[in-house]
């Protein structure tokens, strides 16, 4: 996007949420363990397309890309991930009831 027209730069910042820091830590640790590269992170973000890119927040794009990379590398499967996400959600609903 370097060089493209765009709007005014607003000096925005926010305190990172814990889940965002955990997502960041996952990439650092996976890189250190040779399980993922920064190029894979970027590749799996770039294939999102402009709409999804703009709709998702920064760390949403990261965790999406990390998941995709791990699936592509066969570290986890799509099936495992889908099941675990359902389980996490169900567990959370129980807890907050």
């Amino acid at each position, binding site marked *: 996007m*370097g060089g493209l027209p765009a709007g005014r730069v607003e000096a925005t910042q926010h305190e990172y949420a814990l889940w965002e820091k955990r997502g960041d830590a996952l990439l650092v640790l996976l890189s250190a363990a040779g399980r993922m590269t920064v190029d894979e992170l970027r590749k799996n973000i770039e294939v999102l397309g402009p709409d999804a890119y703009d709709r998702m927040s920064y760390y949403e794009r990261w965790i999406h890309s990390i998941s995709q990379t791990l699936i592509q590398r066969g570290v986890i499967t799509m099936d495992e991930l889908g099941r675990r996400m359902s389980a996490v959600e169900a567990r959370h609903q129980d807890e907050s009831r």
Partner: protein
Amino acid sequence: MHDHPHDHDGDDHGPHRPHPGPRPDADDTLSYYQVMEIAVRELLIEKGVLSAEAVRREIEKMDARSPAQGARVVARAWNDPAFKARLLQLGNDALVDLGLERGPYKLVVVENTPDVHNVVVCTLCSCYPRWLLGLPPDWYKSRNYRSRAVREPRAVLREFGLELRDEVTVRVHDSTADMRYLVLPARPAGTAGWSEEQLATLVTRDCMIGVAVPKAESTGVNQ
């Protein structure tokens, strides 16, 4: 038999579930991607790829990094010409002198002079010298900054309240996954004899990205 999602239809990228979209963050709901983070992390821990302890330690390290580290480097460079020469020449290798973490990527320090002003951006994503500045602010990662910093840097700097004289050359440095930049701002006038600790108070994160310049009158430090 496969109830799982997304195989080869190309335009979808995640397990099929009620789609994300911007959803308000309430205390009692987890967003789709928050759920994904928890799920991925749990799977990685179960498979022994990483440990919960390692994640916790990484977050502690993250929290410990801040622009204060970069400010120490700048203040030392202002007060110690030999250190400054090493820093400009060697980058990371000079940080060891201050007992600082040696970054995982090549560090290039670019010096502001009366004739040259340096600005750092990452047009591809968000590459940033985290070991000296901590995590980047949102605006650094924004489309607007990344798009325009390389095309109309003076206009962008003006939006940060920094007006440069026409004679000053603006150099924009585009970071990469393997190389990070830190701006060494010019030492403000009126700071002769200041200690490194005093000098460091003038050096903000934005000064080291290059969207601001340090000013001696901006603090209450007495001379």
